[in-house]
């Protein structure tokens, strides 16, 4: 039996990246929302992500790790082209990671400083990730318009993470903070709608390859079928708006709905992106088969993944189960 190993690893890499964006997305979003909350609320917000953020960021290492390991040629090209945004993202992730630990132990203006760095690091990392995505989609073309596009995607991704963060807080908190989070989620949704719309329109314009994939023989069964993706996104957005509206009016039972809807929007956008790019790992330049490592290396890693992934999913699920329910202030208690 011969397996298409590069295809399998492309799927695994996509899965890891999507998991990263969903999971670290909500804790980055919570970080960006910190300035909107008072001191007591900030404690709750931090407590809600405390047990998870380390493991969330590990998905990034897995995603980049698969790129590095399974597609070494592409890894060099992509990270070489994204040198400075990668550095900015890493510094952002470092700042917020340590600020998270330091702020708990600090007092007075020190704590204020770490709070500020926690916000700044979260924002810098999110924005840099968006810029990286924007550069990646357009095949790293130089030129003012392309850079502007990348900055736009950076801003859109910040909005997206804010939406995820707010939806997470709706699930994990109650009372005044939850009410605030409902407002943030709606604000984030507007931002995401704008961002996704702009990116969806701009991407086919800047990339003929993507344009051909979506509109070449429009209208045909294939391209009309593809329109289900944006339609489903709009539906998820409507569900989110409706759920937050109901909660604002006092209904309590749907506190998990906004997070589910937000995750669905991300997953749909991700699917659209994956469809646009496939089979390229560097758009218009290199396919996943051209970039793949030697089959012997891929085989041994696949064996590892097959054994470990179920365990990983099991104990991640266990950790989320242990910390289910509303967050309580007071870490380390």
């Amino acid at each position, binding site marked *: 039996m011969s397996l298409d190993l590069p295809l399998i690893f492309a799927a695994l890499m996509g899965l890891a990246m999507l998991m990263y964006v969903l999971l670290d997305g909500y804790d980055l979003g919570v970080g960006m929302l910190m300035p909107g909350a008072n001191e007591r609320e900030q404690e709750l917000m931090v407590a809600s992500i405390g047990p998870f953020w380390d493991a969330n*960021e590990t998905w990034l290492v897995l995603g980049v*790790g698969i790129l590095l390991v399974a597609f070494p040629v592409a890894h060099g090209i992509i990270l070489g082209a994204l040198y400075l945004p990668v550095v900015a993202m890493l510094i952002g992730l470092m700042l917020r990671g340590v600020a998270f630990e330091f702020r708990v132990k600090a007092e007075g203006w020190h704590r204020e400083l770490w709070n500020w760095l926690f916000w700044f690091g979260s924002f810098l990392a999110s924005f840099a990730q968006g810029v990286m995505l924007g550069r990646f989609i357009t095949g790293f073309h130089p030129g003012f318009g392309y850079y502007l596009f990348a900055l736009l995607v950076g801003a859109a991704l910040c909005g997206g993470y804010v939406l995820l963060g707010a939806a997470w807080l709706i699930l994990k908190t109650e009372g005044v903070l939850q009410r605030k989070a409902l407002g943030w989620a709606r604000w984030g949704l507007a931002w995401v709608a704008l961002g996704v719309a702009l990116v969806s329109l701009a991407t086919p314009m800047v990339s003929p390859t993507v344009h051909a994939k979506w509109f070449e023989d429009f209208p045909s069964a294939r391209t009309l079928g593809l329109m289900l993706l944006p339609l489903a996104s709009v539906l998820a957005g409507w569900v989110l708006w409706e759920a937050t509206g109901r909660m604002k009016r006092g209904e309590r039972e749907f506190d998990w709905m906004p997070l589910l809807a937000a995750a669905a929007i991300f997953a749909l956008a991700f699917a659209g992106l994956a469809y646009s790019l496939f089979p390229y790992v560097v758009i218009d330049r290199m396919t996943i088969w051209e970039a793949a490592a030697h089959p012997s*290396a891929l085989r041994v890693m696949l064996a590892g993944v097959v054994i470990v992934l179920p365990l990983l999913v099991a104990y991640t699920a266990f950790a989320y189960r242990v910390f289910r329910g509303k967050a309580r202030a007071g870490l380390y208690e």
Partner: protein
Amino acid sequence: MESAEVLLLARAQFGLNIGFHILFPSLTIALGWILLYFRIRYARSGDPAWLATYKLWTKVFALSFAMGVVSGITMSFQFGTNWPGYMLKVGNIAGPLLAFEVLTAFFLEATFLGIMLFGMNRVPGWVHIFSSAMVAIGTTLSAFWILALNSWMQTPAGHVVESGQIIAGDWLKVIFNPSFPYRFVHMLLASGLTAAFVVAGLSAWRLLRAQDDASARKTLRTGLVLAAVLAPLQIFVGDLHGLNTLEHQPSKIAAIEAIWKTEKGVPLVLFAIPDDERRVNEFAIEIPKGASLVLKHDPDAELKGTDAFAPDSAPVAPVFFAFRAMVGLGVLMLALAWAGVWASRRGRLPSRRMLWVFAACTFIGWIATLAGWLVTEIGRQPWLVSGILRTAGAAGAASGAQIGVSLAGYIVTYTVMLIAYLVVLTHLAGKGTQT
């Protein structure tokens, strides 16, 4: 800018990152096990002093772990940004080893750390102990994979060349390559010593402020006894590791011992200022035939000098000095630990002067670890993977300006992080277990 200078910048940046990163795993690998010990002592005795101890050191662990995670993420990117040639040439070996680290170790420790830190009141006691054990196992597994890869780069084995690509012929030989067992044990013991001195040092700091702190007395003793046991073991294992290096990487030994010419009856250079330009030792203090005696157990045995490996010989001066710093600190740790165990026998409290010494030596293990790391990494130059890939052949296309700007960014970030880390650690120790 000259390409040689860009290469040096790229190396400086990666060296800074990896040198900063290594500080934290070298502490948390062993601290994970020490925490498990504290946790089990509490479970068996119910003594609140052990619980307070456990909680305090959990905070130190969490802080150090976070520093390790964020600097580790940085490294996973720098393989691509700084050394694309590395993955192109040996990616089929290095890749799976790194992937296995992430899959088996990184997720394990990061996930169970959440339960360990925040879940004590949410899960049954045994689940909490199990989580603490998983964190300790995770950190050790992580070291296993990283040391397997590093050792393979030092003493490659088990690989074959197939149509120009280097692939694994026998994974067991790749992982258990000739220097791996020695290096792995050497690193674990280094971590044990680092953590033991951090535990003893911060406990001494606490006792200087509050003599009757029951928890600090317990942990001072724990740290000192652990160091007293591990220090002689480390010297023994280090010696074995050196003999293994002589067999597989004689070029590194020539640099360590500052031997320039291949000859018989080589003297042991105790101190000198090696001059890499003129290839001589200035101000040398030597024991005649000493090196031949120590390394080959025969005063007239022949040893290879750096001339045997030119032009691929390692730079002598940095390796020579770093090795002496490492060994000197190792001996100092042994003396301190034994003196401390004696001074704290049967529940005694060491003198204030001695407590000050231990507080001052809190991070002595870090310095020794960094020195040892410099020996092994610079001693392998100019190779990145011995005999297979030169460091220069792995460098990327990033410009000097790009590397320079990001290097400056990293230096500022790491300085801030390190200062904050030390301040918070001192603050935690100062507050003690009252809170």
